């Protein structure tokens, strides 16, 4: 994207909380969570060619780590750290969890790896339930510490009025998420354009050639798993802040389950595997659509009986995957590039 185009985009995104109701902000924040996670997965599956269906698991690792590191509950394990430290810690722990998967990732390739990674989702389901002292258990879950930055609380606490609009928890969280997304985006862009990104693509395209050029394939795979998991972990922290609760899943189709993993993969595919702006666009489609349709549903009156916003969104993203693979393997990113070429 042209550097200049960023200015209006940024201004609009910064101004939105002054106009939009809390519901719309919630929906927007949800898309940002998706975008952060999808950027991580597009690095792993798109740039480095490692299929992963374990993204939901790493979300859970990040979510749990943040809750434990920042938690102050008496009956649960909690270290009571400063929330910013807890966030950084959670991202680091998620990265380590990604590295721990390296022995498998290093040996198992392609589609086998995708199925192997599915094991982590089931492991996460089990651990989330079994490790109740960390996760709070499926019965009650646990409330995460409110995020704070240098004494400023991202909650309804205190009054902060900008342009006549009181900024309450939801508005504040919007800005926090915006910063986290911008940072994630910028870091990923930096990595992809340089040495580390080249080594990922080399591993994806030809392991023998990568090796001959001095790339340690095993280490690179472990590394990209770590990076991708760190992104997922950050998305996990964001999701507990968004929900105001960490609640481990009761079954494999929950917040950190298979469907989530597939949704993230769908974002990466629809956006165009490997493309960072594409991943953000994919997140807007996959996570934005159900939210926006739900908010509009009362006004629209479209959805009756078994046709629900969630169902319609599933159809849309299922079809989008099929269409992308059939007609435009570069996804939304390639379509965007083409439009740009047409205009210039």
């Amino acid at each position, binding site marked *: 994207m042209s550097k200049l185009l960023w200015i209006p985009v940024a201004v609009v995104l910064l101004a939105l909380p002054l106009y939009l109701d809390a519901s719309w902000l919630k929906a927007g924040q949800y898309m940002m969570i998706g975008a952060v996670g999808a950027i991580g997965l597009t690095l792993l599956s798109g740039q480095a060619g490692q299929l992963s269906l374990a993204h939901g698991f790493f979300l859970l690792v990040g979510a749990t780590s943040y809750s434990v590191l920042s938690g102050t509950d008496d009956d649960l394990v909690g270290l009571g750290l400063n929330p910013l430290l807890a966030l950084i810690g959670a991202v680091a722990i998620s990265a380590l969890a990604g590295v721990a998967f390296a022995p498998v990732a290093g040996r198992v390739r392609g589609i086998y790896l995708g199925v192997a990674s599915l094991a982590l989702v089931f492991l996460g389901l089990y651990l989330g339930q079994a490790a109740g002292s960390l996760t709070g258990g499926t019965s009650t879950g646990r409330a995460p510490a409110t995020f704070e930055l240098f004494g400023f609380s991202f909650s309804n606490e205190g009054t902060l009025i900008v342009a006549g609009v009181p900024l309450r928890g939801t508005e504040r969280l919007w800005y926090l998420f915006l910063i986290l997304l911008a940072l994630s985006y*910028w*870091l*990923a*862009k*930096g*990595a992809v354009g*340089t*040495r*580390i*990104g*080249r*080594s990922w*693509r*080399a591993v*994806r*395209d*030809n392991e*023998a*050639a*990568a*090796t*001959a*050029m*001095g*790339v*340690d*394939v095993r280490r690179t795979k472990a*590394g990209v798993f*770590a*990076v991708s998991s760190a992104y997922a972990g950050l998305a996990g922290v964001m999701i507990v802040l968004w929900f105001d609760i960490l609640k481990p899943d009761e079954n494999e189709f929950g917040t950190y389950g298979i469907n989530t993993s597939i949704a993230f993969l769908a974002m990466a595919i629809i956006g165009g595997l490997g493309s960072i702006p594409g991943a953000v666009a994919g997140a807007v489609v996959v996570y934005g659509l159900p939210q926006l349709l739900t908010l509009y549903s009362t006004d629209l009156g479209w959805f009756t009986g078994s046709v629900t916003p969630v169902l319609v969104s599933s159809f849309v993203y299922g079809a989008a995957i099929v269409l992308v693979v059939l007609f435009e393997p570069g996804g939304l990113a390639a379509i965007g590039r083409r439009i740009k070429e047409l205009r210039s």
Partner: protein
Amino acid sequence: MLVLDRVTLRFGGLVALDEVSFTVTPGSLHALIGPNGAGKSSCFNVISGLYRPTSGAVRLGEQNLLELRPHRLAGLGIGRAFQNTALSTHSTVLDNVLLGRHTLTRGGFIACSLRWTRREEKRHAARAREICDFLGIGAAVDQPLGSLPYGVTKKVDIARALAVEPNLLLLDEPAAGLNTEETAELAATIGQIRTDLGIAILLVEHDMDLVMGIADQVTVLDFGRVIADGTPGDVQTDPDVIKAYLGATT
């Protein structure tokens, strides 16, 4: 100096290489030839660390290459080009060539994503362009690889191997898939690399004409064994070589 010392490679009961020994001296253009199935590729893969020999040694100077994991070879100054090019077709030429700079640069995710390596990147990109210019593909540097003719991608592959700044360049059947004209041009390029850059080259090749025109030293393999080792002139008149090649072609 690359030395192969009695390298034997077995796959199950099959002997792919049988006590193969030869030496590539610095600055020379050494060709490894032989009929199909003679063990050229196996030998090449042993040198580049993809296969582990059953016995024997491969040394570069004092360093035993078999002790190293294969990705370490680039750091020792061994560049390699592939028979089937093995490039990233979606990336640009520059991006492909820059991969060769991997061992000459530093920086993981954190350093790269925070742009700490930006200045270094620029320096190495300039060097990569230089290499491309040297090989006559400077004009294509910013184009995506997929849009280029095969002859050019072959050169990109060699450019990438040169980007390692090697003192030994391994070329695996570079003429495969090229027409006569392109082969001639390639021969000139290879000669140029040797003379202008002073890099030793190990050339595995099927095309006898290409080899005999430019090689300093030729090793001939047949059924996994060295049947001749000498100057092109010596080898051409060796009765075993003639028999092997005649046998293979009839």
